[in-house]
């Protein structure tokens, strides 16, 4: 198993956000982490990346407890853009290349070239969508075992969403797994192997996407709407 969460609990003060999460992800899968706003998606992602500490339970990444070693294996796209807008593209690439052993400079330049982003461009003149694409290019240019993408398509137009999906698919190889959270389900469901539904800090479904479709005769989006009707 590439990722194993055992009895993971996390609270913010008195508010329980993750309630005994158990999860196993194998290698070579694209997995959707689907839940409403405030269901615990981002918190789960943050504890896997050790940006938040656990209250209870354990998380193993490729057999290793989360920590410095597991961070080498995970390439993480946070919800927010964290790149320094006063820097040039090439400075950020050098920074990534210094920081991550598995970073592939040629690959990122190729991806940015497709987007018509030049090494001397400054981030401050880029649009929000462009910065998101740039950040995704950086994240997908690491040769990681696990890619964790938190809302990779939040706030971008449908054409850009297609570009982002293509980039994810084209850079996904057999040995790695992609875990991505989203609530734009209908846009991404065709690329998913497995779906995880999370609601109120608990996992309510964890199954094969095509199996769920044939069992229900519905799209993942419809099943989601029914499961989580307000």
């Amino acid at each position, binding site marked *: 198993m590439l990722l194993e969460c055992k009895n993971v609990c996390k609270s913010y003060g008195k508010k329980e956000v993750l309630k005994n999460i158990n999860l196993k992800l194998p290698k070579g899968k*694209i997995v959707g982490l689907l839940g409403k706003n405030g269901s615990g998606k981002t918190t789960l992602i943050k504890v896997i990346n050790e940006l938040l500490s656990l209250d209870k339970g354990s998380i193993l990444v490729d057999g290793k407890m989360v920590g410095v070693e597991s961070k080498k294996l995970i390439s993480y796209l946070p919800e927010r853009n964290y790149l320094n807008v006063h820097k040039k593209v090439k400075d950020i690439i050098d920074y990534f290349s210094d920081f991550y052993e598995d970073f592939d400079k040629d690959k990122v330049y190729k991806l940015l070239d497709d987007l018509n982003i030049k090494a001397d461009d400054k981030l401050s003149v880029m649009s929000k969508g462009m910065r998101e694409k740039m950040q995704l290019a950086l994240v997908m240019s690491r040769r990681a075992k696990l890619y964790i993408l938190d809302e990779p398509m939040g706030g971008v137009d449908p054409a850009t969403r297609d570009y982002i999906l293509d980039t994810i698919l084209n850079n996904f190889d*057999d040995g790695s797994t992609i875990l991505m959270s989203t609530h734009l389900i209908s846009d991404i469901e065709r*690329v998913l192997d497995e779906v995880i539904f999370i609601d109120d800090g608990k996992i309510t479904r964890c199954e094969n996407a095509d199996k769920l479709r044939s069992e229900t005769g519905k799209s993942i989006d419809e099943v989601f709407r029914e499961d989580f009707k307000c």
Partner: protein
Amino acid sequence: MFSNEKPIYMQLSTFLAMDIVSGKYKAGAKIPSVRELSSIFKVNPNTVLKALSELENLNLIYTERTNGKFVTKDKKVIDNYLKKLAFEKTKIYLNDMNKLGFNKNEIKDLIERCE
């Protein structure tokens, strides 16, 4: 291109089967690689693998070790599949027309008038 309501691998295998019976991929021709298909149809490579294994089960394609996947050289298999598809489509059509209250002779008449 795919509907989200049905398993994507089934839709993809039907789509590729149509390409084979319609002659887009001829008997004995090489099928694009998993990665190419995944990129063409914008689906997960695992979905492509599953779709191809469906076609392999139907004997429409076969694997040549290390070389990739090829359309069967047996034209009979392709022909039989084409007939099966034609039969299924006709059945669906007849069913719909029956629901609309047409009998066989009226349907035949309609088909002729459409031509």
